[in-house]
């Protein structure tokens, strides 16, 4: 287990080293290694496919622009997720300030993906309209984040602690609280849908 963990870290670092040497091929490898997970993180945080794609783009633009100055003081995942998290929170804050999407507008946006020819987009739209997503969106940002990291992306308590700047004990108690709240919200959403 420890060796596997070390191997993953070594592979991550190797990818970053290749990017530091430059070249689109290395960039593509790094993108392919993280794109799905980062996109899932952003989509679950923001609840909107288009916004998630924008944040994914901005995250990798930041990563590629700053990869040369990366000093390997933390893991590649910690660094990349840190950028994505920051951009997501920034977008959520801006959304709260300036953008008030009505329910109808949101449904329309989701339907535009559902109607798309690409079956992947339709699946995504369905996921982002699911009761799980609705329940997630009813949680405070930090609870949502910790649930996505742990339950959807499979990070360890230690990794989440490093990413969020919390101690492992804090991660556990926060996760316990977030799970309980999520279970309650999910029940509420399901009851609402049944009515």
């Amino acid at each position, binding site marked *: 287990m420890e060796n596997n963990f070390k191997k993953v870290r070594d592979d991550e670092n190797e990818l970053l080293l290749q990017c530091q040497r430059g070249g689109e091929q290395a960039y593509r490898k790094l993108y392919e290694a993280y794109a799905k997970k980062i996109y899932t993180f952003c989509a679950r945080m923001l609840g909107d496919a288009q916004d998630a794609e924008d944040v994914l783009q901005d995250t990798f633009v930041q990563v590629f622009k700053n990869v040369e100055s990366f000093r390997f003081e933390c893991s590649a995942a910690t660094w990349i997720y840190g950028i994505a998290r920051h951009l997501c929170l920034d977008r959520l804050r801006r959304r709260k300030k300036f953008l008030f999407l009505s329910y109808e507008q949101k449904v329309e946006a989701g339907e535009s993906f559902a109607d798309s020819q690409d079956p992947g987009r339709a699946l995504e739209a369905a996921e982002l309209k699911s009761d*799980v997503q609705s329940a997630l969106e009813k949680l405070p940002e930090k609870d949502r984040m910790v649930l996505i990291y742990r339950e959807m992306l499979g990070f360890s308590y230690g990794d989440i602690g490093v990413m969020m700047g919390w101690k492992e004990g804090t991660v556990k108690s926060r996760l316990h609280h977030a799970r309980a709240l999520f279970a309650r919200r999910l029940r509420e959403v399901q009851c609402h849908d049944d009515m």
Partner: protein
Amino acid sequence: MMTCKETGRYFDDAADGSLEETKKQDFHAHLKQCKLCSKAFMSYRKSVERLHSAPLLEPGKDVFALIMAKLNAQTAFPAPRERAAKLFFSFRKLSYAAAFCAAVLLVIMAGRTLHMEKIEKETQVVAFLVQQHSMKWELESVNISVPGYGELLGEDIAQDQPPWEKVFTVLGI
């Protein structure tokens, strides 16, 4: 036997399957007896399982190309905010360099002032001693020692050899 409160505390470990064997037995024994806890745990576990089973989502196929285009555009024409940041940092570097130079200059000037003060003090002391002893000398006898020179100077100077040439200049000899 566990209480309802204690059972609630182990929901996480039980849902993760990481509950210790002894606690596991107590936990399940309580669930068998308490319908409320049993229902709450089922709902808790189900919701966690729903999260686990949520699929990873896939971004559009053209996203990488868009990222590279954005990256190239930004590297060629940095945004005004970034340019301002770059300017700010170069200005900051410049101000650090200026501060360093000023500090070095200050140290040199302070050293020089101290050095001048020392020479002045030496000269005054020798002039005083010359007056006191009514000493007469010729230029050839430059190496005469003046008793008490080091002591009067207030420094740990073992020798009693004043800097004669400086003294002669000051006294106009």
